[in-house]
């Protein structure tokens, strides 16, 4: 049961990351901050699990990374979305919307 939950979160996390990265080159720390900010602390994303997800996405070619200087002059790894990544994001969002619509419909009719 614990494993199934992790699977679900992983898929969701991937989508969230893609969505955040879509906004432009951004480093890992900023992504984690942004996700927390958007989700208004609803998702307690363990920061450690963000990086494997990022690496997975990079390995699949949905995001790509560059080492650049930050505003404070430090070297950091900046991620941005690839063309494939954008497509993936679109399809995942569509999928997600359909799913949530379906769930909402079921919940409404079940009342």
């Amino acid at each position: 049961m614990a494993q199934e939950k992790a699977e679900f979160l992983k898929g969701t996390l991937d989508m969230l990351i893609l969505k955040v990265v879509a906004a432009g080159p951004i480093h890992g720390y900023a992504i984690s901050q942004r996700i927390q900010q958007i989700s208004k602390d609803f998702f307690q994303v363990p920061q450690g699990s963000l990086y494997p997800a990022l690496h997975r996405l990079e390995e699949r070619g949905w995001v790509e990374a560059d080492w650049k200087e930050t505003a404070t002059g430090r070297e950091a790894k900046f991620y941005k979305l690839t063309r494939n990544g954008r497509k993936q994001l679109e399809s995942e969002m569509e999928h997600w919307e359909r799913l949530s619509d379906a769930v909402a419909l079921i919940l409404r009719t079940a009342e």
Partner: protein
Amino acid sequence: MRWLRRFKEKALWEKRLNSELQFHLEQQREAYVAAGLSEAEARRRAAIDFGGLEPAKEECREARWEYQVDVLARDFRFALRGLLKDRRFSCIAILALALGIGASTAIFSVVDNALFEPFAYKDSHHLVTVHLRDQDQAEEWRGLFLYDEFQEFGKQKQLFESAVANLEDDVVYSAGQNSVLLAGNYVTPGTFEFYGVAPYLGRSLEPADYQADAPPVFVMRYRTWVQKFGADPSLLGKPFNLNGVSRTLVGIEAPRFAWGGVDLWMPRGPAEPKIIRSFDGKQYWGVVARIRPGVSLEQAASQLNVIAQRFSKIYPKDYPTHFSMEVESFERAVLPPEFRRALYMFSAAVGLLLLIGCANVANLLLARATTREKEFALRAALGATRFRIVRQLLVESFLLAFAGAILGIFLGWAGVGTIAAVIPEFTIASETVIQMNSSVLLFALVAGVCTVFLFGLFPALKVSRCSLEESLRDTGKGLSGTSTGKGLRNAVVVAEVALSVTLLFTASLFVRSFIALERVPLGLQTDHILTARLPLPRERYKTGPQVQSFFRPLLERLKSSPGVVYAAETSTRPPYGGIRSEVEVSGKAHPEKWFGLFQLCSEDYLRLLRIRVLEGREFTEAEVNDARHVAVINQTLQRRYFGAQDPIGQKIRLDELKDFPDAVGDPWFEVIGVVGDARNRGLEEPIDPEIWIPYTVTGSAMRGILVRTTNDPMSMMKNVAREIWAVDHSVAMAEPNTLDYFLELFTFAQPRFGLWIVGIFAGVGLLLVTIGVYSVMAYNTARRTHEFGLRMAMGAASSSVLKMVLRDGLRLLAMGILAGMLCSLALARIITSQLWGVSPYDPLTIGAVAGLLLLIGLAACWMPARRATRVDPMAALRYE
């Protein structure tokens, strides 16, 4: 090569991963510091927020594909270590697999090459040969036909699409002063189109070559061209002097074209018959036809019978009183039926062997899996996914299967080579090429490898099927395995033992039969004798005095050359002897026909072969030179036709001599001596009545020489050839070799071959059965480790546990041996024809085989049994 670079950049990648994560922590820490926390507290909070650093890194690494390669390499190393640690298991499993694959591939390849695809000829399954059978004697009368008969057969278009014939003849190839004897075939028009094999070089014989005014040509066999003419392509288009005719070599036939097993083929034109050298006035042709699809062999035979009835009126001497025609498939005619049956038997047995090899491997893997069930349960409990365990097992199975397959391919290859090397000449068609059959090999490999993977994965299936706790608590603890599985395993052992008994029994019978054959007293001594046929040019050697004008000076020359003890003329090659003839004895009336074999020989013949004179005397030189009608007979003839009467001085008539081209008008001979019986129909057949007469009485019949030497006969070959050419340089030796060689070739080679095959087979079978018994017993005892521990804890002595295991093994062995004996007895009738001088129900052999198997089986049980007694009761019960 991007992936290679990535692989090399692993260190850099690690560094970057590290700095990426450090950057994150740094940022977080700074954020906390900015929020007013102390430096130390900020660091602590940042670390807590992040979670485990190393697990995160590991997870990042797993995202990369290089990681999978690493894991696989680790799996390989781990599997290899495991297999090396359990060396006994690994070796036995690999050996069982390799033996199953190797033996089945080797023997199936031979069977397939020899039985199913022996010929490279077009549509060879529809080729048939024709024979004439003597119905009274129930044996073949002749398989060769007169040209008229052949032409009539060929006209039966409703039966045959086409027919061709060949006439075998000795061909003397004269090159300068020397002559070489080659075997030649005259072939009828359309022969090469009939067989449909493209030549290797040049062209085959074409329709124009058979015309009356066509220039004489011939084509050569590939093997002859390579062995006797050094594969010289410039010979093409050159004239050869063959039997005094200048013929042009126009082609070298394909390597697998060996029709008639001869060296060369010549067209039979209308003008050819005159120069053919066969000794009788008539020429007999071998006939091959292509039967029409849908026409049965029986139909064809019955129609040919009608034709034969007509010809029997024209050529009454060429037909027995009651006869029938027989049409036989070509493949069947060329391969002796006993050999064919033996091969079928072997191929069935070899399939079983493969099955047994696989069953053994399966049992071994199951035994190993049982003892490892806990290991896998523990791994699963520690978090190994099912996929991970399956992969681990797959790698292990792969290593086993790979080693077994490689060794199996090697064994198969070596086996095919060995069998091809020991197959005696004339057992299989000379067109047959024995080589490894790749599809058979593939089949065996797939069967073996599938077994390994299937049973190698067994523990993984178990792990996934039952829950972890159950596995950990209960593995291998049942009082016995699942009952159905156990029954099957035991059945396999019984079947293995039974098959092994049968194989060993057959092998032992072959050995005993062979020994019996070798012990047969020949009645003559074959050592140190050089022999050769000497086909004399027919046109110059027609009469007795003409033949004598060749042999008399030759024998004198040979006798006076150093190293020669005796030299004699002979008409056949002992221990096969003489020309069959009807025999009359003066003053004896008898209702049935009397037959005997007569030998045309010179005075030293009996002395040379060390045949003992029992009564009277041998011929003198003068008697031979004067062509006197005197005869020496053997004991069998004396006993059978003279009875108690003293044969010396009596007269005997050899009717066959009247029918020779150089006929003997009054073939009565006076008996001057009786000699001891010597084998004259080979070793296995009873001795026939035999008569020796001076060779000078007729000019007909094939002649040859026997030379007894002091040293190795083969070293004398050149000297003998020189003496022959000194007398007549157009005469060449045919098939010169030692008498021992021919004895080996025609008498011992085939049984020895059978011995080889059955011996290898029985050896492999025995090895596999040992492995089989061992693996099943090992599995059974491994499952019962807990039970044994309990028994010993309750006070059972280790000897009683030992006895218990051995008793179990013994029960299986006894059942197998019993079943094997029954199989052997059932098989006895089939192998009787292959045996000589030993009964297929020989009790001594059966007893010995049963004893041997029992011993080996018990030895195989011993190891697992010993292990069972060494079970530490505490260790076995600890997890209760």
